[in-house]
Each structure stands twice: as C-alpha cells, then as structure tokens.
C-alpha cells in the first residue's frame, strides 16, 4: 500500500472506532474534569494565585489526560489480535506510526480545545487577545507529546504492567515539552510581548521535529518481531 494512503486509513480506522464507541474521548474528558476539580480544591485560588498557577495546572491536566488517550491507542489493538495484523500488514511501519500519531494528536487536541473554555470559566481567565498564540502552543506541545507518546504506547502495550509503565517512561522524556509549554502559556496568558516567550515556541518546534523523525525510525523496531 502506498505510504500516504496507509496513513489516511490508519487515521480513518481510529476515528471510526472512536466514533462508534466514544470510549477514549469521553474517558479523557471526564478525567480532565476531575483533575480540574482536584486542583481547585487543593489550592484556594483568588485571581492573582490563579494567574500564577494556571499555566502549570492546564498542562498537568492536559498531559495526564493525554496519557490516558495514548495508552488507549494501542491497548484497543489488543482485542482480536489487531496488533498482530498491524505487524503483518504489508504497509510501511512508519506510515502506521504517522497515522497513529495523527489520530492521537487529533483526540488530544480536540479534548484540549473542549477543556480550555472550562479553564477560562472556572479560573476567571482573561484570554481574548491570547487565543491565537495559545492555539499555536497547544498545537505544538500536543504534537510533541503524541509523537513520543505514540512510540512508547506501542512499546509498553506488549509488556506487563503497561498502564503504569507508559507514564513512567514517557513523563521524564517529556520534561522539555512540559517546561516549554508551561512557560509559553504563562507568557501568553500574562500578556507579555511575543518575543519574551518565543524561544519556548522554538524549543517546541525543535522537539517536535527531532522526535517525530527519531520515533518514525525507531517504530520499525517495535512492530518487527
């Protein structure tokens, strides 16, 4: 099968199975809501405290939610030996990887876009002029998380204790994404000029490029058996 057609089919397959079950997105959304609630209980926040902490809260919620989605991405392939079918499929493995990244990216980004208004509502944020920049930051950081995360989702799905091992392996590697996303979001929300935090966006772009390429190459060694 040609390369780009494979990518399209993998994305299409994931979207259809998500549309029919609505498992991943709904569990991600509910989990994220609970995280937001836990945070608002843990810190009694006035306007000033909220402005200080909100960037971190947003990204902790998004990352943990993303890990749920990433974990589901390959555990759902375990039923009916779908994973073995993917392994035996005469399609380029890299294309399967890119299709999975695209699907995970779409799930995570849509959950983030649904959640963000709730953050604005619950924490009284003032975001009108920062929305464009925030969308760019969400886009880049989610791409970084899903490119590494998809690789480790495929890696942990075939081992014992997979639910624990995905965050244990993924979170230390995602440290640069977390730092850059939090700093850039804080800059955007506090209304700093773009040049103050543009280096964090550059870091996100560099991370995305490096790890999409590296994971694309390494994915072949995971599915090959």
């Amino acid at each position, binding site marked *: 099968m040609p390369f780009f057609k494979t990518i399209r089919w993998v994305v299409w397959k994931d979207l259809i199975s998500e549309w029919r079950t609505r498992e991943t997105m709904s569990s991600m959304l509910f989990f994220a809501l609970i995280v937001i609630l836990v945070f608002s209980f843990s810190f009694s926040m006035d306007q000033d405290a909220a402005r200080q902490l909100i960037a971190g809260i947003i990204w902790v919620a998004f990352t943990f939610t993303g890990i749920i989605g990433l974990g589901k991405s390959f555990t759902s392939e375990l039923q009916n030996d779908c994973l073995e079918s993917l392994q035996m499929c005469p399609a380029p493995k890299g294309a399967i990887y890119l299709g999975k990244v695209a699907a995970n990216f779409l799930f995570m980004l849509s959950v983030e876009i649904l959640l963000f208004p709730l953050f604005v509502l619950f924490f009284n944020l003032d975001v009108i002029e920062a929305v464009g920049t925030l969308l760019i930051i969400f886009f880049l950081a989610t791409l970084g998380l899903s490119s590494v995360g998809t690789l480790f989702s495929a*890696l942990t799905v075939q081992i014992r204790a997979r639910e624990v091992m995905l965050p244990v392996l993924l979170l230390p*590697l995602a*440290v640069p994404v977390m730092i850059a996303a939090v700093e850039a979001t804080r800059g955007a929300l506090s209304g700093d000029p773009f040049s103050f935090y543009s280096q964090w966006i550059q870091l996100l772009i560099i991370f995305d490029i490096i790890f999409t390429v590296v994971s694309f190459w390494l994915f072949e060694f995971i599915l090959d058996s």
Partner: protein
Amino acid sequence: MINRIIRQIQRYKGWFGGGAALCIFLGLYIGLLASPPDYYQGELVRIMYVHVPLAHTSTLAYSVLFFGSIWYLWKRDPLVDNMCQASASICALFTSLALITGSIWAKPTWNTWWTWDPRLVSFTVLLLILGGYIMLRRLVDDPVQGGRYAAILAIVGGIDLPIIKFSVEWWRTLHQPMSFSTRGVSISEDILVPLTLMSIGCWLLFAYMVMVRTQILYLTDLLHAKKGRFLSQTHFSQTTP
C-alpha cells in the same frame, strides 16, 4: 563455546580493576590528605574529588549505553545487549552516588540539601530514565524483545537528555541566577592532580564493573540457552565452537 570477546575480557579485566584501585587510592590520598584546603571553600572542597568524577563517569556510562543501543539495533549482537544492560545499572549507581555526594556538598555550601539547580534536575531526570530502563527490562517476558525495547528507550533518552539539560538550564536562568559557578575560575595544580587521578580511576572502575557484569549476564544467558529456555533465540549464532 564461549565468545572470543568474553575470553578477552577475562584475560584483561584485572588490569582495569587494578588500575582503578591504584588511581582511586592515590587520588583519595592526595585529595583528602596531601592537598591544601581551598581558598574559598576550605576543607569542603575535598568532596569535589569524589563528586565530580562520579558525575563525569555517569555521563560517560550513558554515552556507552546510548551508542551500544544504536549498535545493538543495527547489528543485533547479543553481547552488545548484555553490555548495554550492564552499563545501564552501573550508570544508575554512579548517577545516584553523584546526586548523594552533590547533596552532601550542597548542604554546607548552598545551605540546603536540595535546590532546583539545572544540573541537579537533569541528573534526576537521567536517574528516572535509567530507572525506567531497568524496570522495562524486567517487565518483558521475551529477552530479545526486551533488549530491543530497552535499546529504543536508551536511544530516545540519549537524544532527549541534551534537550532536557538545555531546557532546564534555560528555565532556571530565566528565574534566578545560578548560586555557584566554577566558570571563569582557573583550576590550580593542587586541585587538578587529584581530580584527574580520581576521574581516571572512576573511568577504569566503570570499565571494570561493566566487564564483570557483561560477563555475568552473558554467561547466565548462555546457561539458560543450554538449558533450552530461550526458545525464540537467535542469540548464540556468533559463538565460536
């Protein structure tokens, strides 16, 4: 039946162990007893002769793990996989020792056991990655698959570590200046001699430990293979009869 390289290791590892013992003994003697106290830090400087070589050695150990993992994915040599596994656990040992000695040094100089200094943070992340590596190897049933997965983790980690260090450094320097820096201070000979000796000693010690551990892991695998436990194994095609 035993691999040629394993036999070479058996022959030469004693030199590495002896050299390590000699260098560390001399380095400790000069560093702890014979050298004068530092102008700024007084007697406190002496922990540096242990701390800095440990930290250097752990980065060296991770480089061995990183390049070994690339080599393993490329050539699928089981001995290289054993070497990677050996250097990962020894790297974890050196990293934790570096963090502990650093913490002991930080208490009198920075007046705190722990601070979010860039180097401390990146070493902690390194330790977390190594912990993940060691856990990952235990959680995969098929050892060949485990070696491949662990190699993938080591490669991603090796590419990520410079980015982590860079981003953490950037993050901290934007918030607060580093409280202590050796940059721009020229190092005198009194410090340089014991420091070099200890560094060479730690590198030799690392090499010796990796050799012994690789040998153990390889021979254990060989024993299992002989008992017929590795059914899915292409493992020992390269052993010389």
